[in-house]
């Protein structure tokens, strides 16, 4: 109904039948029509439903707002943070967190403001996580869709390769890779991470493609002369968007935790770039009395990972309401 109205808007009046469909002198605006017929008719896209379902998930919405706040903090780190991350305040060395003055998270043993260092660390960690999420999505989607669409030998080869990748102990391989491929640069750390954790996403996309490629609409597209690339991109991928987005959030959470572990062990981001994991590692060496040096960056990691997981949970409920949640 609404489609009909839209297409005829501004054109010659048509006899449209349906409720109140006697004779309309000119096409009415949607709202007016709805008002006239007494039924609230409004164009509702798929995304409208997704949005409403997501907004109903209060924890996820709160997490999203919190995460946006952190991302803004990270983007505008230079303006927001009270000090530069390498600025020394020699009058306040190894000071605990205070509300007097501006060292809310205290200072480290060199007198650097810890709040600023944590903000810049967050900036690095979020940047790596975003990079990993983007790259992983591209790699995983490409491999998964090719395996799922073509099936047969291609599928077999790609999936056996995926199995092999899953077999290797992830953190150990990552550590080896960062030692031998050189490390330190966030971009490089991100690429190494992405090259190793695309496997889960590839399996999910493959699963969706396997079940969809036999459907009638694919057959119809083939009959209409669409090529493989067109079918994959235009007809199949849009159906896999839900699972892809959900697993992207899980990848972001995993990337933050893994990067932190790598940097903590000394094989990830190298100084002078502050990263949350590295801050914790440095804090550890500065004595057990300086508890704030370990506590605050860790709390930030937990908060980010928690927020991302909640958002993922909300997205899963919103994008795929039929799916029963087994895993938190």
């Amino acid at each position, binding site marked *: 109904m609404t489609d009909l109205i839209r297409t005829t808007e501004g054109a010659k009046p048509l006899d449209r039948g349906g409720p109140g469909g006697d004779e309309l002198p000119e096409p009415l605006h949607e709202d007016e029509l709805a008002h006239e017929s007494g039924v609230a008719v409004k164009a509702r896209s798929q995304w409208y439903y997704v949005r409403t379902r997501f907004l109903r998930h209060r924890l996820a919405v709160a997490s999203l707002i919190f995460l946006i706040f952190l991302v803004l903090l990270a983007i505008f780190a230079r303006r927001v943070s009270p000090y530069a991350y390498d600025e020394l305040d020699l009058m306040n060395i190894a000071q605990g967190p205070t509300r007097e003055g501006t060292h809310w998270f205290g200072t480290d043993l060199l007198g650097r403001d810890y709040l600023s260092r944590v903000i810049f660390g967050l900036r690095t960690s979020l940047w790596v996580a975003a990079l990993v999420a983007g790259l992983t999505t591209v790699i995983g989607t490409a491999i998964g869709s090719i395996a799922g669409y073509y099936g047969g030998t291609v599928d077999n080869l790609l999936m056996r390769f995926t*199995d*092999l990748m*899953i*077999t*290797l*102990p*992830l*953190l*150990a*391989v990552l*550590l*080896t*890779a960062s*030692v*031998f*491929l050189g490390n330190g640069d966030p971009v490089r750390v991100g690429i190494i991470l992405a090259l190793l954790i695309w496997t889960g996403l590839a399996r999910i996309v493959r699963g969706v493609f396997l079940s969809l490629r036999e459907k009638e609409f694919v057959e119809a597209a083939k009959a209409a002369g669409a090529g493989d690339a067109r079918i994959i991109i235009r007809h199949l991928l849009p159906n896999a968007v839900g699972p892809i987005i959900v697993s992207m959030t899980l990848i972001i*959470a995993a990337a933050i*935790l893994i990067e*932190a*572990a790598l940097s*903590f*062990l000394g*094989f990830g981001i190298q100084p002078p770039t502050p990263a949350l*994991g590295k801050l*914790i590692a440095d804090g*550890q060496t500065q004595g*057990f*009395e300086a*508890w704030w040096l*370990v*506590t605050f960056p*860790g709390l930030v*990691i*937990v908060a980010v*990972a*928690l927020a991302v*997981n*909640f958002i993922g949970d909300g997205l899963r409920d919103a994008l795929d309401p039929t799916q029963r*949640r*087994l*895993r*938190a």
Partner: protein
Amino acid sequence: MLTYIIRRLLYSVVVLLVASFLIFTFVTISGDPLAFLKMSPGASPATIANIEARKHLNDPIVVQYVYWLQDAVTNQFGTTIIGERKIMPDIQRVMGHTIQLVIAAELLAILIAIAIGVYSALRQYSVFDYTATTFSFLGLATPVFWLALMLQILFVNIYLWFDIRIFYTANLSGVDPGGGVYFFLDRVQHLALPVIVLCVASIATYSRYMRGAMLEVINSDYVRTARAKGLKERSVIMRHAFRNALIPLTTVIALNFGGLIGGVVVTETVFGLDGMGLYFINSLNSGDPYPVMAWLMIVSAAVIMFNLLADITYGLLDPRVRHD
């Protein structure tokens, strides 16, 4: 079933071989293991040439791989590149310690997770259920190394302030623990914190699975039948529901092994435990590829074995699964 197991075993051997080639090429092409030695003034060219000849470092990579594989199979992964130290005795020593840690942590995690999962499922949407869910989210979002450090800081400060030693926060054994019970108590005091740290993530994962499996079983037809027959609620839950809900958990536990290794590496590094994880980090820092490759091979073999075990136990426990 037997043919299935045999086929899967053969397949696992092939996977392990491919993995060994990947690991070898990956580690070998990425750096010259003698780079550091070549730069140091104390090492004569003759020494370096000697090592290169012994480890076949100047051969093509495939030839090197065959030599290495031969060494690995017939000579237990051979020796380190400098100092000719045998790799296997070291790995055996640290593996014993890691197995103590992992078994203690996993047993604890499984028991707690089953209790939490079953109770959450029986009281779905209760306060307990929501609390458990929140804590499992929290457990999965907490970096293992950070939790380890926080506990370490806490217990060190308890010791510093009150002079009470509840748990040790580093190493595996005291200076002279004594024998028998004293040794055991000393070991428990040393392993307690690492075990707690390691089992947190496992509890978070397993309890979610257990809750899900239990919910599914409780709502299934045969449980309704059991109730309809007039069985006691206790009998319905324990004999009909609970035992079936355990089946998926076995798979999850077996497949979780690879992820557990990461936790072991981090935990042992923080607490300075002389185990597999610390050995791996030390090998990486020494830049010697041979212990690193041996470690990766042994751990990969273990992960492959656990994957196999997951599939086989699932088939054995659930008669609906047929392997042909």
